[in-house]
């Protein structure tokens, strides 16, 4: 489409408009010209006609005057009066020459031609133009244009010869020829032709036209319409024609050449056309240039815009002239700078941790992802020890300041890591490209060294520490998520074991995808009753009787077989799925206990509660309901809770615990000694029992330190009014030591492995027989 580009549009519109205007002008001028030509022709014809008539009139008068003077000549009169034919003849010939009349005639008063210079008169004849004679008799003289017998056209003048009264008429004929016509034509500017119409035939007697044209004219006039004026074509020329009568059948045809009339206008029009053409070309050229000048900067602008669109903010706008487009370009350039700076800011925000100014998690992950497949290196995740307690004790403000300070400190480590980032909360991450195990280790030590120094904030001296988990790539994993998970697990391990740091290769975690699937499977397992409860009996050290059993969850996986809880319980706790497992367990346990009671087995059955279970608002209600449902005395149920489980939200956990205590349910602190609960806290708990962790109990007999711990724990518990159960009694030596040292209850492989519910009664029966 011709109008697609702005440039072409400008040119087309401009030139089109100009052509339109010029066309209008040409049309108007042309129309006006034609009208002017027509009116001028008419005027010229009119004027020419009047002049012609006046000239002829004057001519006539002149001739008449000359004739009158001639006729007054005494000698002439005398000669005519003598009636002597030869005399008359010679005198009229002589006087004809004098006056320049080609024809002279003497006519008697009764119209007979007495003498004629044209011919000898043997017999008098009457004067052929009677009307002239009549006119002369009436007016005293007459004149007119007549074609005489010789075929020529004459201007005839009849004047009286008075001596003193009319004795005869003298007629003088002056030849009208082409010369006469030419003379007149030159004066009036019209072609003059004298024609005679005899019937249907028209003959041209005298004309200012050339011979060929005269013939054409004669022919054309035969069918002439007459009237005022009309256009007549003679060959290629056109004439506006007027016909005037000169005499009887003689008339004069005056013509105005239309070509001549049009000539100046034609010239004007041609000049105008040339000028217009030139103007249009000039204009077209000019508008093309202008359009280009307008469009070129726009093109440059759009190129720049595309560059900006593609993210290249670096190139400034090309130089522009200082007009509107230049202004646009300038604004564009400012916009470009602003966009660039905003994008930079956004990127910064996207990748920057607002608090510390370090890289954020997104940035770290991205960087790690980029580096993973290029060489080797290490990733370390740092968790700040005791951060939560500092935050709680001194407030979030101080906590934030602390993080900032730590960030600064970490940033000062040399050699600097490839990337230092704050992942979230109180966790930082380091990317060490090209680092091997040794370098990673050295780095880790530097970090810990810094963190082990106390930090002073607002006059406060804060002791902090850190736990680092390190994962190497590509050794430990070649995937970002995997790598981080490994480092994270290593960190958790380090934290748990207070080792300061740990390497990922040491921890052996499950593949992530396996873990993710596990949640779904657990849900299904619950629905499909793949979970089973095994019971480990507890032995009363004093009575030697089995007084209770701990319910332990096993998973009968269709593919993996029997899955130990260590492979899914922690995960269940992390994902919160435990909240669905525990109720199921509790209900089963209560039901089982009730059943045993009915069967005569008086056992206190124990079930484990996790931290999440402790915080569940429905816990107490559910326990109460199930106890009621199964008609189990609350004291027959024991709930084991680890120290750590109470640490998350101590107050809420405590309140639930208290409610359970008030319900009459037995409560135990599980894994005592490896948790973080302080003695002060433990003393406040409404519990009945402490279960010493197996790490102390296993091979207690041979381990003096452990023995010391166990012994003192037993004493402590008894002093607090609590019973003690030892977990992990594996050898008879252990059992006897425990018995000797006052332990109330023992549990472990040394007594029995956990067994299905159905098997327990049988086993108890068998054992009690032995003991």
């Amino acid at each position, binding site marked *: 489409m011709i109008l697609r580009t702005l440039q072409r549009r400008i040119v087309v519109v401009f030139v089109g408009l100009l052509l339109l205007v010029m066309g209008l002008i040409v049309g108007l001028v042309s129309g006006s010209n034609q009208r002017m030509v027509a009116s001028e022709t008419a005027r010229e014809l009119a004027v020419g006609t009047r002049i012609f008539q006046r000239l002829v009139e004057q001519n006539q008068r002149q001739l008449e005057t000359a004739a009158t003077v001639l006729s007054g000549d005494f000698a002439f009169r005398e000669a005519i009066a003598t009636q002597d034919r030869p005399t008359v003849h010679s005198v009229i010939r002589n006087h004809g020459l004098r006056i320049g009349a080609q024809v002279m005639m003497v006519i008697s008063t009764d119209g007979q031609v007495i003498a004629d210079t044209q011919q000898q008169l043997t017999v008098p004849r009457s004067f052929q133009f009677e009307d002239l004679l009549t006119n002369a008799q009436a007016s005293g003289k007459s004149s007119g244009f007549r074609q005489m017998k010789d075929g020529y056209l004459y201007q005839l003048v009849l004047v009286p010869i008075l001596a003193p*009264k009319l004795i005869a008429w003298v007629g003088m004929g002056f030849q009208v020829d082409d010369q006469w016509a030419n003379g007149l034509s030159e004066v009036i500017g019209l072609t003059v032709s004298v024609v005679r119409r005899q019937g249907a035939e028209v003959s041209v007697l005298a004309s200012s036209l050339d011979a060929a044209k005269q013939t054409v004219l004669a022919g054309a006039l035969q069918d002439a319409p007459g009237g005022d004026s009309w256009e007549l074509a003679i060959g290629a020329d056109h004439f506006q024609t007027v016909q005037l009568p000169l005499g009887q059948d003689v008339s004069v045809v005056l013509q105005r050449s239309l070509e001549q009339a049009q000539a100046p206008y034609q010239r004007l029009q041609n000049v105008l056309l040339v000028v217009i053409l030139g103007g249009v070309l000039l204009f077209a050229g000019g508008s093309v240039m202008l359009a280009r000048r307008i469009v070129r900067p726009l093109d440059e602008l759009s190129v720049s815009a595309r560059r900006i669109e593609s993210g290249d903010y670096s190139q400034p706008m090309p130089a522009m002239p200082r007009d509107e487009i230049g202004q646009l370009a300038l604004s564009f350039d400012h916009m470009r700078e602003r966009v660039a700076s905003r994008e930079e800011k956004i990127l910064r925000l996207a990748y920057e941790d607002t608090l510390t100014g370090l890289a954020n998690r997104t940035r770290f992950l991205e960087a790690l992802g980029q580096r993973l497949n290029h060489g080797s290196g290490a990733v370390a995740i740092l968790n700040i020890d005791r951060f939560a307690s500092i935050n709680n004790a001194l407030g979030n403000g101080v906590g934030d300041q602390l993080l900032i300070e730590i960030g600064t400190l970490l940033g000062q480590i040399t050699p600097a890591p490839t990337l230092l980032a704050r992942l979230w909360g109180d966790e930082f991450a380091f990317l060490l490209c090209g680092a091997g195990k040794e370098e990673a280790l050295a780095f880790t030590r530097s970090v810990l060294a810094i963190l082990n120094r106390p930090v002073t904030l607002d006059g406060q001296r804060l002791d902090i520490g850190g736990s680092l988990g390190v994962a190497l790539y590509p050794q430990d994993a070649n995937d970002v998520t995997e790598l981080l998970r490994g480092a994270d697990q290593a960190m958790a391990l380090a934290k748990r074991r207070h080792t300061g740091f740990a390497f990922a290769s040491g921890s052996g975690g499950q593949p992530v995808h396996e873990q993710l699937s596990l949640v779904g499977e657990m849900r299904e397992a619950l629905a499909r009753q793949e979970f089973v409860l095994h019971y480990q009996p507890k032995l009363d050290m004093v009575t030697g009787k089995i007084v209770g059993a701990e319910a332990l969850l096993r998973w009968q996986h269709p593919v993996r077989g029997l899955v130990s809880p260590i492979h899914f319980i922690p995960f269940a706790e992390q994902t919160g799925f435990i909240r669905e497992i525990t109720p199921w367990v509790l209900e089963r346990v209560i039901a089982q206990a009730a059943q045993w009671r009915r069967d005569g087995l008086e056992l206190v059955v124990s079930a484990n509660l996790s931290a999440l279970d402790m915080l569940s608002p429905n816990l107490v209600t559910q326990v109460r309901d199930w106890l009621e449902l199964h008609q189990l005395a609350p004291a027959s149920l024991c709930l084991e809770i680890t120290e750590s489980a109470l640490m998350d939200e101590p107050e809420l956990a405590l309140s639930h615990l208290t409610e359970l205590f008030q319900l009459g349910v037995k409560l135990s602190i599980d894994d005592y000694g490896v948790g973080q609960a302080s003695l002060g806290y433990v003393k406040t708990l409404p519990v009945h029992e402490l279960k010493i962790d197996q790490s102390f109990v296993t091979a207690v007999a041979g381990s003096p330190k452990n023995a010391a711990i166990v012994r003192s724990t037993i004493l402590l518990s008894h002093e607090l009014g609590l019973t003690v159960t030892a977990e992990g009694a594996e050898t008879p030596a252990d059992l006897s030591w425990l018995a000797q040292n006052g332990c109330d209850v023992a549990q472990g492989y040394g007594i029995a492995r956990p067994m299905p519910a159905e098997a327990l009664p049988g086993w108890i029966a068998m054992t009690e027989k032995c003991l």
Partner: protein
Amino acid sequence: MRPGLVALRLALVLLCARAVAATVDATVLTSAGRPVEDAAVVVEPVAGVAPKGQRTVTIEQRDREFIPYVSIVETGTMVEFPNRDAFKHHIYSFSSPKIFEIKLYAGKPVLPVLFDKPGEVALGCNIHDWMEAYVLVVNTPYFARTDATGHAVLRNVPAGSYRLRVWHPRQVGEWTLRDIEIRPGAAPTKLALVADIHARVVKLKPPVDSDKY
């Protein structure tokens, strides 16, 4: 009749006429009733030769006009043309009864011209184209010219038979001659005549200006 006899008869008639002279009272009007001035009323005796009356007639040029316009003279009369104007007149006539031309200067007397043939003579002046005069030469002494009222009186016309002729220089066509009888007696013979004349073509007469002419 024999000339001698004729002469005798004429004498007798004349004698008788003298004794019995009559008056002819003629009035000439146009058919429209207008009086015709300057008409010649001429009676010519039918028989016999009319006695000649010798007279000298004067046609003077005054104020660049011939006065009188019409003169009637008997054949054989001498006509004088005194020039009363201050400049020259060039009288001419191409009429066949008398063809002549005289250049007349102021105050210079010229011989009179004899008009010896009957007929109509038209006089013009070559210098002054408008000057016109007419002389009717007749063979009888009995004629009169009508005045402005168209009235003419012929006196002392002897009784007898006459041929009446009325003539005007501008007459329309030929006026017929007519025979009349003149009776002697005191009472004039009244003639009421009707004759049409052309209007006089007035030629341009420029005013007198001694410088211009």
